[in-house]
């Protein structure tokens, strides 16, 4: 992956990217709602769902390089809450079981939250998903099922689940829409300042 163009020394560039990543990671790890012990999960299947690898710029770069770039920018490995949440996301079968942490933060963020109704709403969505797709770990789902499962998080009744969806999407999009070859593919000229 080609880095971002910069006249600054590489060491300097890395330092403020690290700083930027630190903040993004903090944004991601508002809380963790999975089992930290099972946090050794790969980010790849999520990247494959957010980005269409049928398309040139992403196919040319490849999932592994994008995952490496996300890690170098945002240091997710050093964010146990995020890794734990990622593990919970991957474990599709557990979707209807609302972790107490999700309910707890929901009450903190939104004092009027109706937790019981929200649990029921997510259970209904999951039942529809289960009618169409065989339940398996996220990585083992086909692309249609992955997208449908991602929609469950995107449209969840729980703000915490929606946050995980948006935060994950944000780091993936930030990592690729800052790469020269992707800029070229979408017709963005990039910095006009040449130093």
């Amino acid at each position, binding site marked *: 992956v080609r880095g*971002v*163009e*910069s*006249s*600054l*020394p590489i*060491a*300097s*560039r890395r*330092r*403020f*990217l690290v*700083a*930027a990543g*630190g*903040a*993004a990671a*903090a*944004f991601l790890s*508002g809380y963790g709602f999975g089992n930290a012990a099972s946090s050794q999960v790969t980010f790849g299947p999520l990247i494959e*769902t*957010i*980005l*269409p690898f*049928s*398309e040139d710029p*992403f196919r040319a770069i490849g999932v592994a390089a994008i995952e490496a770039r996300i890690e170098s*920018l945002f240091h997710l490995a050093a964010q146990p809450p995020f890794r734990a949440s990622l593990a919970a996301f991957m474990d599709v079968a557990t979707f209807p079981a609302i972790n107490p942490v999700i309910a707890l*933060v929901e009450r*903190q*963020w*939104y004092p009027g939250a109706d937790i019981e109704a929200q649990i029921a709403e997510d259970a209904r969505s999951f039942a529809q998903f289960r009618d169409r797709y065989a339940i398996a770990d996220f990585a083992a789902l086909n692309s249609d099922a992955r*997208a449908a499962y*991602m929609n469950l998080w*995107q*449209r969840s009744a729980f*703000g915490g689940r*929606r*946050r995980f*969806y*948006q*935060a994950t*999407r*944000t780091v993936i*999009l*930030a990592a690729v*829409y*800052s790469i020269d070859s*992707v*800029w070229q*593919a*979408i*017709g*963005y*000229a*990039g*910095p*006009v*300042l040449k*130093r």
Partner: protein
Amino acid sequence: MKQLKCDVLVIGSGAAGPVFAATLAERMSADVLLVEKGPHYTAKFFNQNELEMKALYAGHGARSTVDGAMPINGGECVGGGTTVNYALSFNPVAAVWRGWRSQYGLEGFSLDRGASDYGVPGLNLPRCVSDVRERCNVHTVEPDGVNTNNALFKRGCDRLGITTRPFDLNMRGCLRCGFCGQGCAYDRKRGTLVTFVPDALARGVRLLHHCSVDRLAFETSASGRRVIGAMATVTPTQPGSEPNMLEPGPVAIDASLVVLTAGSIESPVLLQRSGHPDPHDRIGRGLIAHPGLPIGGVFDEIVDGYKGITGSYYSDHFYRQHAFMFECLFAHPLDLAVAIPGFGIEHFRMMRHQANIAGFGVLLVDTPSDANRVRWNAETGEPEIFYQLSDADARRMRFAAARGVEVMLAAGAREAFVTSDEPLVNGAARFTDSAQAGACSSLQFLPHRTMMSSAHAQATLKMGAHPESSVVNSRGESHFVRNLMVCDSSAFPATCGVNPMISIMSLARYQAIRTAAEWPRYR
């Protein structure tokens, strides 16, 4: 521990601090220390790279409400918001300031150019506004600087009989590169970084950047409590920053007068962690955010909305009755990709046609609520920001979104969209016919589903006559701690009603002129 002594400690170098420091140094002989939490970057650092220049923003662009749903943008570098904004320069709204005087019992802030408030010759709000506008070269955007995105916005409004106005911008000799949000690489945007900061330095003000103020130091005596300085930490200088005046490490600063100009998130949080008295639970309460909702449109023609002057036109057509504006702005790909809802091939189809996308935003002038607030979290050491749209504001935002969709379609968009994945029309927030705009009435503004953002935090340390309902008086002085002043956006008693930069700078200029004239109060 290092020790610094000064007469006046000014905390925060955004829109307010440099104006206060430079004006005070212009009006009197005083030893002024201006401190800034962020780095002192200058034009040579601004490389126009969207991701790298997140370094100029608070939390590197990730500062948000406590649920992570609404970005609360602000600059965190010398110049603050004036370094990263789009140069949109609105005069203070006379009716708003008049209303503050009657409603909150404010003294001064005369709107008569001939007035001499506090007995200080020529001290009045309009004179301060003129001074600030002149120094920052505020002028109306030139007609030949209007880019396609702005021309489309104006066309849509014209066709619907919606009035538009050209923005006033604080620029000089703008090269129209379109990278205001990444810091002006050419020093053509006239924020405080290139105006009042150099003015202050030329008059002997010292600038200490990379300096986080941990807490204010108070002294209690028989005559009450007063501030005597601050404890701070100087952090290592970031690469690309100007050199600092001190090595990293803790520093104790003695001052006769402390002036808070750290913005509406950091100023209240500093008071909270300093243990400033708050018997009526007012500190941080009633945050005004000016929530923004982007309206997008896909056109057959090439728009290239990021090229040229970003904002040339706005509309205050609905302002009087519904208190919102449309402001024409656009984003570079990273922010655009995040704003466009969804994922996978559909998301990429939109991004692949980003050159065909036009955009502007709704800026809602929100109504105050005590539940919207900033609170220091002692455990994390970070501010927590709580913000939710009231029911009445949500109704106005729905109305505004519908009008925005109509404008975009009238401009010729084949599809208009709102940055939301709520199911409004055929399961999405996309519109191909203006008859569909009414579907905006079912927008719920669900956090993480409808993307709003804020860049105008205000009113968290309100001025007012009564300690029960405000934190500082009309002079910006704390009701509870002597020689402590607040003169940034947090001192606004309510919304200033427009993009706040010039209002903040004018307030700082006003309070500095008054402070110089009334200096014996602070000895």
